């Protein structure tokens, strides 16, 4: 069984990157001094970022896996349902209306949920969801919302622009650990539920007819999966804004490495995406320290070459 071996390797990797993420930064703390009282504040801040990275990586990657399986579309990703532009638009509107910073996550969450509802309703006909219309509706809503964002930004200028950038390029700066805990609950729960559907996802990834022949109620499963991934992404947007690439590429990468069986794919992807995100966050903080580069930029810059390499090599290991 390769599963145990792969999981152990990934777990070890995760431990290593976590240690690096804790000691490196604007101030480097030697490993031995990490738990000293003097370093408590920095340690706590960095630990929160690490936890956020793990949560965001796992949540987005597992959502991507599930959506790619039910839609059998390699371009499916967690923000497929217009989530990102919905959240962005809502945040920008909130800034313009002068809403207090504390309510920003809530505004983003509501925007994400709203756009998901619109896309879902556009795509369903008599209670039946067709994959293609879902993807198209998502694209249409994204484009429409994005243009409204740009329109508002050009009218209201700098402040809205700054807020827009924060949401659209993402950051793992955690302002409030309570918010992190609040978000962790639906995300972890959502990942677990998706894992319970692992065998159904296997069957559906062969095609909807095939799945029906294996006794699977594909319409219901599709709805459940869409709902859960929507919940995961909307929750994550509250703490980190939009972080692209993770939910699209990490699933493909792991499929190339461990194969398409979701029982293996989901746990290994959780670990791999966590490693990836912790690493990306470390780079975003340290490369041009004290300047922080938006994490979305880093995820794309690291992810793209790694993915190309795997695509060319293209074998299970």
């Amino acid at each position, binding site marked *: 069984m390769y599963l145990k071996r792969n999981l152990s390797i990934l777990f070890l990797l995760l431990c290593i990157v976590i240690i690096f993420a804790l000691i490196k930064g604007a101030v480097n703390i030697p490993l031995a001094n990490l738990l000293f009282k003097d370093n408590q504040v920095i340690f706590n801040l960095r630990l929160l970022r690490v936890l956020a990275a793990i949560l965001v990586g796992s949540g987005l990657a597992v959502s991507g896996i599930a959506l790619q399986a039910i839609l059998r579309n390699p371009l499916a990703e967690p923000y497929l349902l217009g989530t990102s532009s919905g959240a962005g638009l809502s945040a920008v509107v909130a800034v313009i209306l002068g809403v207090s910073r504390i309510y920003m996550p809530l505004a983003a969450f509501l925007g994400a949920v709203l756009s998901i509802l619109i896309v879902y309703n556009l795509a369903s006909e008599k209670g039946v969801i067709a994959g293609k219309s879902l993807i198209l509706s998502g694209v249409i809503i994204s484009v429409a919302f994005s243009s409204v964002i740009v329109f508002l930004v050009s009218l209201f200028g700098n402040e809205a622009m700054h807020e827009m950038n924060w949401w659209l390029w993402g950051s793992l700066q955690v302002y409030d650990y309570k918010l992190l805990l609040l978000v962790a609950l639906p995300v972890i729960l959502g990942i677990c539920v998706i894992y319970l559907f692992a065998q159904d996802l*296997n*069957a559906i990834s*062969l095609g909807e*007819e095939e799945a029906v022949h*294996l*006794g699977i109620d594909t319409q219901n499963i599709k709805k459940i999966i869409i709902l859960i991934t929507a919940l995961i992404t909307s929750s994550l947007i509250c703490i980190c804004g939009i972080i692209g690439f993770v939910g699209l590429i990490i699933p493909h990468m792991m499929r190339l490495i461990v*194969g398409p069986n979701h029982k293996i794919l989901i746990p290994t992807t959780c670990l791999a995406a966590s490693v990836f995100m912790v690493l990306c966050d470390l780079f975003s903080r340290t490369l041009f320290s004290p300047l922080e580069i938006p994490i979305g930029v880093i995820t794309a810059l690291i992810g793209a070459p790694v993915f190309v390499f795997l695509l060319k090599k293209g074998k299970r290991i």
Partner: protein
Amino acid sequence: MSILLKINNLYGGYYQEDVIKGLSLEVNQGDFLVIIGPNGSGKTTLLRLVTRVLAIKKGKVFYKDKNIVQMNLKEFCRKTAFVSQDIGTDFSFTVKELVLMGRIPHLKRLQFETKRDIEIVQEKLRATDLLDLADKCIDELSAGERQRVLVARALAQEPELLFLDEPTSHLDIGHQIQILDLLKKLNRVNNLTIVMILHDLNLASAYANRIALLDKGFVFKEGHPKEVLTYKNIEAVYKTIVLVDNNRLTGKPNIVLVPGEK
């Protein structure tokens, strides 16, 4: 002989147009029924209706005494299984993983496979001569091997009735015979009832104990191969001239195509 599947005045198809228009047919326990008919006569649509992929518009289908629409889908898939022409290879599952999916109808929600399920998979891999390929990815297999994997998966469902939609269409003659011999053996030894679409009339003649000839959404003629495969029936439905004689080896009808120049 008991009736396993009873199709009663069935209507159904796509969008507004019905492809199957008032079709009735019975499948007996132990049958090796082959469905033949020209393109567009409704063979595949019929199978998609009776396997619950398409919604039935009018008429009823009974499995034993139960209306299939009222059966739980998983229960239905424990009784019947379906083998398609080929399988997409976008997701490169291993042979074992794919055959294990045949156990899905036997699992409750939130239940993972047990040792017993793994044993059944192993047994079906042996029956289809796939043990050596068990850990290969399906995209590494030949079309003939992939077809055997699909049969193995269907067998893992432990069905009483097996539907197949042209299982030999992508195969050379050697692999065609291999698959059909395997099915014949399952039919004889394990008393598995088989309903299969075939295009090749001579293969239908060689393996079927009953043939249903479809035309324009109806059963044009149904019965023993000798009753169905007459030159009159074939000419009427396929609109082409054929010569029917007896196969020297099996004594069954042998259809000879007659090329013509107009």
